[in-house]
């Protein structure tokens, strides 16, 4: 499988990264190089093998459904690019 420049534009859009216009050719080549290289996984017979999602199997821990943290509005807003009167300020997203 290989990608075209249009694919790279589409992937960049999906990833919400501004179209890398000046690097589009080189990026397409690099992505194809990497994809060609990972193709070798095709040689491995994985019939009947379960996908591995975590290296050390431990049961997913549960805890009582209690509030253990919170009340940190100012901490949370401290690093906001823009904040006013206890709110994040973001670009308009609903017309």
């Amino acid at each position, binding site marked *: 499988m290989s990608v075209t420049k249009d694919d790279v534009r589409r992937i*960049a*859009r999906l*990833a919400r990264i501004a179209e890398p216009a000046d690097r589009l050719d080189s990026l397409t080549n690099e992505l194809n190089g990497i994809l060609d290289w990972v193709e070798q996984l095709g040689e*491995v017979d994985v019939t009947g093998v379960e996908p591995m999602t*975590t290296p*050390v199997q*431990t049961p997913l821990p549960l805890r009582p459904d209690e509030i253990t943290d919170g009340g940190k509005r100012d901490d949370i807003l*401290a690093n*906001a690019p823009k904040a006013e009167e206890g709110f994040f300020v973001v*670009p308009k997203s609903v017309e």
Partner: protein
Amino acid sequence: MTDFTQLSLFDVLDGLEKKDFSAVDVAEATVKAAEAAQGALNCFTSIDGDKAKEMAQASDARRAKGEAGALEGVPIAIKDLFGVHGVETSASSNILKGFKPRYESTVTSKLWDAGAVFFGKTSMDEFAMGSSNETAATGPVVNPWRAQGSDEKLVPGGSSGGSAAALAAGISYGATGTDTGGSIRQPAAFTGLVGAKPTYGRCSRWGVVAFASSLDHPGPFGKTVKDTALLTQIMSGHDPKDSTSYPGEVPDMVSAVGRGVKGLKIGIPKEYRVDGMPSAIDTLWEKGAQWLKEQGAEVVEISLPMTKYALPAYYIIAPAEASSNLARYDGMRFGQRVEGEDLIDTYEKTRGEGFGDEVQRRILIGTYVLSAGYYDAYYLKALKVRRKILEDFNAAFEGVDAILTPTTPSAAFGIGSKADADPIEMYLNDIFTVTANIAGIPAMSVPAGLDKNGLPLGLQVITKALDEETMFAVGGALEQAAGFTAKPEQWWA
């Protein structure tokens, strides 16, 4: 007068206990050395002399009251991926420039609780994506080591290159790193240090900027195996804030260091003998096996047939997880924002300008392999290969107690020397280290010798999950036999 740059962590603890010097003395010397080296090595993203002094004074007071912790008064350098309360934590990325967390990572909390002293944060490859520390937003880090008779600037390895360069220059007595594909062990090998990556889940990931969550392992650098064992032990332990944190007891890793290797069976995997590997590395590997044999271990050849597939599987899994983890950098709640015409444009400009080239490349790969129509062919396939790699190790560990390999396929290379190369050439640096991340098992690098240019080389010890004790026992035996005492010649300050 004490030359603080020559002391190990245990030397510092000993000197503090004997009142040869105070924690404030050590902290002041460390900050001074850091400031003097920064111009030449560029290994710090920030140095904080005030905080260091304040913490050192508190440490001296605790020691005077007889309340000394296991790391009381010891300065430790912190990779810029760990959240430290009120201190800029940028992951060496422009997108997080100025971000000062209002929280403390679990690992750094454990260090401060044990009495360690903060003095600065170390540079790294942006978001821990790299093997040379050349992708940091603040520019490349320089290795204190240089080839004999040359003044070419070499990389310290990556991604935890700042931590490695600082410690190798004698600044600090231990450092934190994170290892997703080799980011502790490879820089340790390039700088003549010990670097350890314990079992996945031993060290909490909470408060550490995420790269690839199922592969990210916090761990330490040390000047000696014993220093490294103590740091690993302190940094380990169950954390309810990380759902993948291992709930079992932390073993006594420090005691394991002197345990010896008598009666242990050591495996030499034939698949780690790759084409084009310098003969010095092959020779050192054989020497390492011989050293262990002389100390009473039995050395046998083993086979790990899936080895060659570990790196390609990694370059599907790690970018996939990264593309998901890094989706949070949207310029809305924290970090930098670049205003655009509308919301989408703002997202795209923020991420286009905030992320460097390598980070963008990996986000694009990850987005592609997770996108509709490609998920099964790439991502799911890689997860199945991942299990086959783990099964390889599990089968091997039925016959052997530990595995010995080289840490890297080369010694440190020149800054910029791979600039025009294919990205895959840089990725191949992790060929021997990435397998242990895929399997989540303990692995460490021990400095074992110098190549013909006088540059350090490391040997890697891998053990089964949760068996850090055997790892440190073998690491200690290698250290003792290698007698590695070489230091880079001082030129940077």
